[in-house]
């Protein structure tokens, strides 16, 4: 059993006296009494001693109470300040008028008649006056009254009694080495070689260390970086772009009909100001109205350029993909983007007005729908989802469309995003002739599944303790 020098010294003294107080022992050991309590505590953890904690409460007069002891309580002072009667107005000039008058009335010393205070003749000592001089014997209700009036305070005093146990006796009987132990090594001791003669104090490894919190990357960002790594490893170019987009790129260029409910104020954050349409916008108009030069019929109706000039907070990063394609219409193109997108939704545990989306495209001569499924499967497998399946989906800008799902033990098949091949109505206006595989995957959904979260807000309004506790590597993340 490892004891510090102080514990050993206390134990040896306890052998002599059996039971002691910290104050007595403090004198003997030349240590403050509270240190002795601490040593006793350490011994008691090892069952070598017991520390008994006795709490007693004592009542003592406050400064105010002490003053009244000689001057008399305010009601007595007030009583003595006038003759048989006094007008209320005169009495109110006395410094204790406020408190004194109430008490005089309550005790029956005075009565009030038509604005005058008249002594009743009976002003014997009140029980407060009696007990303020003899606190210890005061009954409980009087004590309470004194405390309430601020004349006395109750103080807790704690007294400790330290006693040796049988185990302590046995250990001491076996002999205790009292040589000095060294805590912190000094530079001098190291360089002079003095360390050779020192006994270095041992530490208790069962005692948990103080927690140290390193700086670190947010668990959600680490997951985003993991996804970025996968895509960079697969040879994708990363995109980054403006949060603010024209409705043209966010909706029209993606063949979203102009009367689609998702475009309305109710679902999308609209901003003041208009954005000019890019060169070539007429071809997008033709796609909507008639299908342009493709085999498509288009949506029919009139396409309104003013509607396309509206400005919105991007509802998906697909607006960046299509702009990237319009600028790079020749194959091959492999690009991705993880960025924040905005939907006009009220905040609740599973809905937020802003969240991350992972967006990607592959454009090349011979890429096919099979390849899209192949990519999605590879991505989710690399993210640690073993079972992936594909279900038909619908998005206005892709055809065929697919919704990948992963299998989660307690949840069954969980949909994690959407994908498809960009419709010709989307690619043709920009002179793109190859198929474009495209996908938009929910990132925060994956984070919730991986980190076992039930409330999305934890990602954005993080409890610092949660971030501190989430392991950087291994564990669930």
């Amino acid at each position, binding site marked *: 059993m490892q004891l510090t020098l102080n514990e050993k010294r206390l134990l040896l003294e306890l052998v002599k006296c059996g039971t002691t107080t910290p104050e007595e022992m403090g004198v003997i050991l030349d240590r403050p009494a509270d240190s002795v309590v601490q040593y006793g505590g350490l011994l008691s953890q090892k069952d070598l001693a017991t520390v008994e904690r006795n709490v007693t409460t004592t009542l003592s007069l406050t400064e105010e109470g002490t003053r009244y002891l000689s001057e008399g309580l305010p009601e007595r002072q007030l009583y003595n300040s006038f003759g048989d009667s006094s007008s209320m107005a005169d009495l109110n000039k006395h410094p204790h008028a406020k408190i004194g008058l109430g008490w005089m009335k309550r005790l029956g010393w005075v009565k009030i008649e038509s604005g005058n205070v008249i002594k009743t003749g009976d002003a014997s000592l009140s029980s407060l006056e009696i007990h303020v001089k003899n606190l210890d014997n005061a009954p409980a209700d009087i004590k309470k009254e004194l405390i309430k009036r601020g004349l006395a305070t109750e103080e807790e005093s704690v007294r400790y009694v330290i006693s040796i146990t049988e185990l302590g006796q046995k250990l001491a009987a076996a002999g205790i080495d009292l040589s000095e132990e060294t805590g912190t090594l000094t530079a001098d001791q190291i360089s002079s070689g003095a360390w050779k003669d020192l006994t270095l104090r041992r530490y208790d490894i069962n005692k948990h260390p103080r927690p140290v919190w390193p700086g670190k990357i*947010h668990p959600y960002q680490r997951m985003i970086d993991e996804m970025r790594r996968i895509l960079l490893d697969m040879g994708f170019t990363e995109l980054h772009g*403006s949060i603010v987009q024209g409705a043209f790129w966010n909706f029209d260029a993606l063949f979203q009909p102009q*009367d689609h409910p998702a475009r309305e104020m109710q679902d999308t954050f*609209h901003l003041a100001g208009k954005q000019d349409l890019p060169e070539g916008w007429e071809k997008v108009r033709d796609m909507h109205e008639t299908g342009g030069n493709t085999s498509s019929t288009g949506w029919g109706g009139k396409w309104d350029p003013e509607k396309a000039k509206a400005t919105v*907070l991007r509802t998906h990063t697909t607006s960046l993909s299509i702009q990237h394609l319009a600028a790079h219409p020749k194959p091959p193109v492999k690009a991705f983007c993880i960025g924040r997108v905005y939907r006009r939704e009220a905040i609740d545990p599973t809905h937020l007005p802003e969240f991350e989306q992972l967006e990607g495209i592959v454009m090349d001569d011979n890429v096919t729908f099979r390849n899209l499924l*192949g990519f999605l499967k590879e991505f989710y497998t690399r993210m640690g989802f073993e079972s992936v399946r594909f279900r038909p989906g619908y998005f206005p800008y892709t055809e*065929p469309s697919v919704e990948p799902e992963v299998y989660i033990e307690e949840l069954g098949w969980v949909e994690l995003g959407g994908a498809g091949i960009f419709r*010709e109505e989307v690619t043709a206006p920009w002179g793109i002739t190859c198929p474009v595989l495209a996908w938009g995957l929910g990132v925060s959904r994956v984070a919730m599944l991986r980190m076992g979260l039930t409330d999305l807000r934890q990602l954005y*309004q993080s*409890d610092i303790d949660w971030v501190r506790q989430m392991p950087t590597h291994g564990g669930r993340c």
Partner: protein
Amino acid sequence: MPVVSLPYKYLERLCGTDRKTIIEHLPMIGSDIERILEEQVDVEFFPSRVDLYSTEGVARAMRGFLGLETGEEIYPVSPSSISFTVDPNLKEVRPYIGSAVIRDVHLDNEAIISLMGVQEALHWVVGRGRAKVAIGVHDLDKVTPPFRYYGAPVSRSFVPLDFDREMTLAEIMEEHPKGRDYAHIVKDKPVMPLIEDANGNVLSFPPIINGELTRVTEASRNLLLDVTGTDERAVMTALKVLCTTLITAGGKCESVSINGVIMPDLSPETREVKVSSCNKLLGTSLSAEEMAEILRKMRFGAEKSGDNSVSIRIPCYRADIMHEWDVYEDVAIGAGFGSLNAALPTTFAAGCEHPIMKHASAIRDICCGLGYLEVMPFTLSNEDVMYTRMQRNPDPNALRVLHPISEEQTLVRTDLLPLLLDLLRMNKRRELPQRIFHTGDVVLEMQTYQKLALASTHPGADFSEAYATTDALMRELGISYTPRESSDPAFIHGRSADIMVDGKKVGVFGEIHPGVLNGFDIDQPAMGIELDLHLIF
């Protein structure tokens, strides 16, 4: 997306198979199962497939998908003498009307519920909340043709559905529940659209409400459909979906003449599709026969018409087929996505990180090395957090959203430090010291930029810590700077400095002003640093 309730008994009867098989295959024809209940399954279908918004439509698709009945359904339309006249006054109000007669229906309760379901779904998806298209279904035997669709004054009255007294159109728009919901579509028009029979009985006040007179019940045998709207194509789509649904339910369709035009036209559209284009898009190697067989499973009419071509007949209810690729998607669904042998694309390209992300990674390394914990606050914020509590003047260039959803999110952040202080407020019960940072997008004058902010709170957080941390940060970023006394009111005067690079202010650091700490309800001293990354990279 609308949710369609499919009652098992009716569904099983129409499909000719058991519910287990149906439920298993539902997701694979393109639906999301919302919930599986005792008597029914509730599913969401995609807005493109309005033909699946009824039990009848789902059964039709399911029978094909399971191979129980393939190829196109034929929808015969017999002539009738029923006609409508359309008032030219409606041209600017609600010009288009489609109609048809369905005879010999025996609608049980489930079929009526299914009919109401498809009507509701069409109102939302095709009709855009009845503005573009609205549908009425009537008991034909209660009224006398010919009918007229005309512009009526708001003083015209009739007994609307679910009421037992006559009301004027004006009253209906104010008092009837449907009137309150849909009056906005027509109330500012000079005349109201109304459908009447030869005796002046009102069938419908589209897009708001039908008359009580023509209410459809289980006893109704002959139905009259009216579909009105502002877009002819959408009106016809809704009409065709309704007619085909009712024919599948057992009815016989008769045509109606509208200003001399005979409708509905339920004949399929024919197209030739190339087998090679389909294989090229899907990555398959199907033959013309195989492709035709799969399309028949998807309820197209389809025959091989050459080694590389299939001649198809597209059912009239498939309004979603706009382009050849829409047909190829059905080939993929019919074949089963699972059978397509997913394979990685072979396109080679070298991966390339975006420079902004590269900077962000380096910044994260530096901040973590300095002992800072990353946080990822929202980008939407409000004037109070962004400016008022910071004791700063509101930035006129901040991007404010036009219709915020709450007072908490009225603008896109222009700074990051306020959000860090707000997070410290939320974490004030957590162990100190707290040192946090964030790097990310801000928006100023419609442009997206990147910033970095760090904040630290504990009893010793002060200017010296801010200065030392800024100094380390700038050293690690490899950028030399000079401090200049700052007058930023978010910091204590005399305990803050602007970060100057090449004579330009790129950031600020210092000890947070106690007024700001009070504003954020932070009890301990705090220091903060904010850096405009686009000004230094």
